[in-house]
């Protein structure tokens, strides 16, 4: 199963509902499905707040893991040039205690983040019940 969805600040509630339906359909138990919703929401909120105001989500099941891939276009070159290169995006995606990414790191079984002035690509992975995690994505 695959879910592909673009989002912005006005469609976050719809995104959450779509993610919940997808997670449940993939076989995620109720509690964990809500963890997936919260994690994807926080990543989407990051994209909305720091990644240019909108983003794109793709969810799919790979080898017993639910992969949630969130990308955004960043602030673009003009914005990056006005500050100091990479530091803009990297600073904004820092994992700080009490912040969204910090929580996502706790919720997801794996988390990978690539971020730069041209945008970010984040993948959060959740192991489905009955599978041992860690065999997908290096």
């Amino acid at each position, binding site marked *: 199963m695959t879910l592909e969805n673009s989002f912005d*600040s006005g469609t*976050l*509630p719809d995104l*959450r509902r779509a993610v919940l339906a997808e997670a449940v359909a993939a076989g995620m138990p109720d509690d964990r499905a*809500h963890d997936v*919703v*919260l994690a994807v*929401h*926080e990543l989407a*909120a990051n994209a*909305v*707040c720091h990644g240019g105001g909108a983003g794109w989500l793709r969810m799919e099941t790979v080898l017993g893991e639910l992969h949630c891939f969130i990308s955004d276009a960043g602030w673009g070159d003009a914005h990056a040039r006005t500050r100091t290169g990479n530091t803009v995006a990297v600073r904004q995606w820092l994992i700080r*205690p*009490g*912040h*969204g990414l910090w*929580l996502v790191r*706790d919720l997801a079984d794996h988390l990978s983040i690539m971020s730069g002035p041209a945008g970010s690509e984040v993948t959060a992975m959740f192991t489905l019940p009955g599978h041992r995690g860690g065999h997908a994505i290096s």
Partner: protein
Amino acid sequence: MADDGVQVRAASLNGACVLWIAGELDLIAAGALAERARAAIAAVPGPVVIDLSGLKFVDVRGAHALDELVRTLPDGRTAAFRRCPLRVRRVLNLLGLAADALPARDRTAPQLAMPELAAQVRRARLEAAGSILDVSGTLARLASTRVRLASTIERAGLLREQGRQAVASSRAARQQLTPAGREPELSAGQPPSPSPGLPL
């Protein structure tokens, strides 16, 4: 679903002000929470009881907004949560927020409520254990060095003894040789001095 995600209203109940927060409290809705909550409770006196039973979703910003709300009530009014859904409680506990406003049974152990502090304690314990290991390793190395040193001293004594014996036996051998071979050899030729051909 409500248009703006979250609904807020207050009512008087047994002398308390029950503040009902329901819906989905995400970063969009969180921005307006404080103002709407203050407006709602301004009309109802008494300690504030925040009923969260209708709260379907809370994100990190929403959790911070709830925390901010219970910490900054006007006129010294106090606030406590009641009927906090499990999922909302989970987010608050994960973030270590609004712990005082949750009923005691709903709070997690301190190590969950304060993950940073707990991690520091864990690290300190690990470091202490590592130091103890280091010290005991050093002590063990010291002990083995002492043993090696003692055996070296012993070996040195043995060698010295062997040397002494060798010197003694070589001296004895020389003394045996002296009358028979070497001394006569040396004295048999011309004595090196005084040389008769050389003027003095």
